[in-house]
């Protein structure tokens, strides 16, 4: 599991819970803010991901409360969840470094040629 690439919503859910336990609606808001509005989680997708992450032991329910007759269930990041997020971020950073090195190594002649054509 540790070597499998995380899908974007999963990554954002774990990152959202890293700053403290949250209920579903708060997570949807937080993920939208974290991604500049790019990742808009659907409720069904969120709970499917939370179920999967719960089975993997990466998140855990952290209490419930009733607000205006609506149930709010809080979730928290577990220690293995925190480690999994750290591993995934290291993988992304390593990839970004590798890719950037290629971009920086781009021959000056190619840059000049394309720059001139543009």
């Amino acid at each position: 599991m540790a070597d499998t690439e995380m899908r974007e919503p999963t990554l954002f859910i774990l990152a959202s819970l890293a700053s403290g336990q949250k209920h579903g609606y708060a997570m949807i808001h937080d993920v939208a803010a974290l991604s500049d509005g790019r990742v808009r989680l659907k409720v069904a997708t969120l709970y499917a991901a939370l179920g999967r992450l719960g089975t993997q032991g990466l998140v855990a329910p952290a209490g419930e409360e009733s607000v205006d007759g609506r149930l709010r269930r809080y979730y928290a990041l577990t220690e293995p969840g925190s480690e999994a997020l750290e591993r995934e971020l290291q993988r992304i950073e390593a990839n970004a470094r590798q890719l950037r090195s290629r971009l920086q190594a781009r021959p000056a002649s190619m840059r000049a040629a394309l720059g001139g054509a543009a």
Partner: protein
Amino acid sequence: MSTLEARYRALLRVYPRAWRAANEEAVLGTLLDVADGEGRLSPSARETIALLGNGLATRLGASLPAPVRDGVATVALATGAALSLVFFLAHGWAPWAARDPMVVVRTFGPFVNPGVLLYAAWLIALALFLFGWRRAARIALAASVATAIGLVAASHVTGGWAGLSSTTIGFLGLLALLGLGGTPVAPRMTLVGFGVATAALAGVYAGLGVFGARYHGDHFFWLVPAGISNLGIALVLALLLASALLVARNDTAAAVVVIASLPWAAAWAVGSLTSRGEEGMALLVATAVCASLLIGATTLRRAAAVAAADPSH
């Protein structure tokens, strides 16, 4: 209860009962919060589709454990792609049979019939999966189902064309559905399965002279190498294998063998219905297929009982 809440509760009925008992109130609370936040009085289309899709997936996951679905998807993708490659060469293109009068009727450009569209969708799905683009591979498999349906419709409208039997279309359609039901396991294992299946089928075809000057339509496959007698024997062997796996307490592998055999059982049933005078063999294999389904059901019940006893599920 508000109308919105009632509509959400109705949608949530798609999920299995056990899931609803554990999660319905929390999910409903979030759905209502989101609707309030967006100022909506009815479920959005995007949300409805997500609830229906996830609900059905949860139901499938509850009745068929993921390792079984993934194993079946692996077998389905490997065999479907192998059949597509060999069928494309032997029945869709057959460049070596250019002088056969049958092939003068090339109804689809340089190809014998539009079946090449179906074969192409399968081979694209396999390639995408091997490159790690799983979602794109699923889209290609879904496209193969749409293509299969389109070919049936087009065949009715145009009055048919040379080849591409309905058994091939239906069979590849069933395989695609099994492939979509799970995620094929490792690309390497899928590639090995594809290689073995392609080599075996190409070997059988070479032995039967399919790659010769005379053109054979794809119905040849269902009449000779996968004729009802051979299919019957293969299904009995699959049943024996599943029984041996059950005895060895490998329920997952047994269920994979049984479910992956279902399209072949369906092809056998079609073959038996369309032929006559095979009552003895038909009875034998019908018994085998029924026993397979029984073993499958028993295995799944046992797997479900194990899952129910596990508090993490």
